[in-house]
């Protein structure tokens, strides 16, 4: 059963960027469709308990919940009058550009239980990709033990289920995002044995003036500081987890200090015992599969992530394709909202052509200024929280790098040395890194760094994001494609 519907604007993702884009475009008269893999709007930042069982989320686990409620009201109002059609619980697994717009293929996120209904094919004149991102990972001995999760994954677990995935946690990696994760754990009743931040916070000093221009961020910082004091959470800077220990699940972690060059300091090791959960987060990786598949121009941002190139209207290099939120640069929810508004306005304007020029330009200037402030803050954050240069030192030959295909650091080193595999694509064909279920989403950054000679190159990261389908789909879904050629390139899964 394949049905197709045509809209003015399609929006992929209903996180901060997607909600803002959808509500804005619908308000401006466009016929909008929004698709999100999750069962309800909110994205990663505003993930919350199921609305049917917990209709009154008080936002206590969230920042800026008021903004969410405001955006959500606009989103729901548009849906109520029929100018916005929302398909939750469905993933876009392929996007193609055609003469008069875009064709999206969707599938239910879950094939069991409450598989979400919706059209398999959606067509729209303009497309706004607000696909967000996920925690960036670095492999470390023992990171494949049950109990080790992405830091954001722990937070998502708490926000969605109101429960904890463990009792005593260590949260490690880099970036201000480790703070809300630890605070959420403590507020939900968990113990946080330590937060290990690899950076030396003096990295912020040159940027304090920039950071101070974002008042909401500063406020958030003080709230976390209070929460840390209240729950006695030890916050250790220049500290990394170099090993996770346990037989069939996490039992302990080994930490070490890193010097100002990001290299671990001999003799500084410490063991933290009685730990049953570890959360790792080294910044975020944007979900670039769909923009890359559509041919959008990309760049490597200050944090080393591959992101889409956009103009002042969030328009990509592909006509009619807009990118907002993490996919145009990892910068937090507040920036994602502003970019979503800009993209929503621009996408609606190019379909309707009825906006008043005078009103637009004043608002455009205001939005551009706001986005500029948040971007400067994001840049300061990226520079202050780099991935430590010496992270590869803590790998052992037997350390798993690609979790899906179980490729070790030793396999990768051998392929590099003997087979001249110096980018992720060659590494993939030699060692199978990135060939498994996750398609390299988890190990792509690390493999690009390990294969390359000077970190992860844009070319290598792009090859990781280049996939014929953005999520694994069934053969019967592939058969719905009329395009034979696409079929041929996707059957290796």
């Amino acid at each position, binding site marked *: 059963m394949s049905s197709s519907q045509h809209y003015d604007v399609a929006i992929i993702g209903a996180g901060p960027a997607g909600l803002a884009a959808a509500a804005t475009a619908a308000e401006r008269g466009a016929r909008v469709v929004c698709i999100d893999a999750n069962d309800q709007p909110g994205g990663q930042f505003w993930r919350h308990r199921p609305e049917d069982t917990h209709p009154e989320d008080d936002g206590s686990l969230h920042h800026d919940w008021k903004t969410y409620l405001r955006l959500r009201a606009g989103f729901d109002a548009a849906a109520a009058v029929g100018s916005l059609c929302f398909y939750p619980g469905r993933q876009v697994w392929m996007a193609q550009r055609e003469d008069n717009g875009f064709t999206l293929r969707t599938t239910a*996120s879950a094939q069991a239980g409450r598989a979400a209904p919706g059209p398999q094919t959606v067509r729209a004149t303009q497309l706004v990709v607000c696909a967000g991102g996920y925690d960036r990972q670095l492999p470390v001995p023992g990171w494949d033990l049950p109990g080790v999760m992405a830091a954001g*994954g722990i937070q998502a677990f708490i926000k969605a289920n109101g429960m904890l995935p463990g009792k005593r946690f260590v949260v490690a990696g880099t970036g201000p995002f480790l703070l809300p994760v630890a605070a959420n754990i403590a507020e939900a009743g968990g113990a946080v044995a330590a937060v290990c931040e690899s950076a030396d916070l003096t990295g912020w000093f040159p940027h304090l003036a920039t950071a101070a221009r974002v008042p909401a961020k500063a406020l958030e910082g003080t709230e976390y500081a209070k929460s840390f004091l209240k729950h006695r959470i030890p916050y250790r800077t220049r500290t990394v987890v170099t090993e996770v220990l346990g037989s069939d699940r996490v039992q302990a972690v080994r930490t070490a200090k890193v010097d100002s060059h990001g290299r671990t300091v001999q003799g500084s090791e410490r063991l933290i015992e009685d730990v049953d959960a570890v959360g790792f987060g080294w910044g975020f990786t944007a979900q670039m599969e769909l923009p890359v598949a559509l041919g959008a121009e990309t760049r490597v941002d200050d944090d080393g992530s591959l992101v889409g190139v956009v103009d002042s209207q969030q328009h990509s290099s592909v006509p009619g394709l807009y990118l907002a939120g993490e996919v145009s640069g990892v910068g937090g929810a507040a920036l994602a909202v502003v970019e979503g508004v800009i993209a929503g306005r621009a996408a609606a304007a190019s379909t309707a052509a009825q906006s008043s020029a005078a009103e637009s330009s004043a608002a455009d200037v205001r939005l551009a200024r706001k986005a500029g402030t948040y971007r400067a803050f994001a840049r300061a954050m990226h520079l202050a929280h780099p991935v430590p240069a010496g992270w590869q030192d803590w790998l052992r030959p037997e350390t798993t790098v690609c979790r899906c295909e179980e490729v070790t650091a030793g396999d990768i080193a051998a392929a590099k040395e003997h087979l001249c595999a110096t980018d992720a694509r060659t590494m993939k064909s030699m060692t199978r890194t990135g060939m498994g279920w996750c398609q390299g989403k988890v190990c792509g950054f690390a493999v690009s760094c390990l294969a390359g000679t000077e970190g992860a190159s844009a070319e290598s990261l792009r090859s990781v994001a280049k996939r014929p389908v953005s999520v694994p789909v069934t053969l019967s879904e592939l058969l719905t494609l009329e395009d034979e050629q696409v079929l041929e390139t996707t059957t290796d899964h």
Partner: protein
Amino acid sequence: MSHKINATFNDRPLTAEDGTTVGAALMTNGVTSWRNTRKEGRPRGLFCGIGVCFDCLVDVDGEPNQRACMVRLTEGMRINGAEPDTAEEEA
């Protein structure tokens, strides 16, 4: 107020609050892994928690390879996965 949902994991009863995911239901019932890797047979459970990594794959109502972090637990659901060796030691 949400009520309890009754399901099974490998034919044993599994109970959790309505509104939780299959992954969360397993975790709160002391099951931290439900899949073994192909090559090394290593145990796996939740990792990314948001549908990206596919580490949490499990069989739900006969549908293989469902992401436990993305599927919501429903009444009578039959979940099947690899038996964790160490779950008993936990208690």
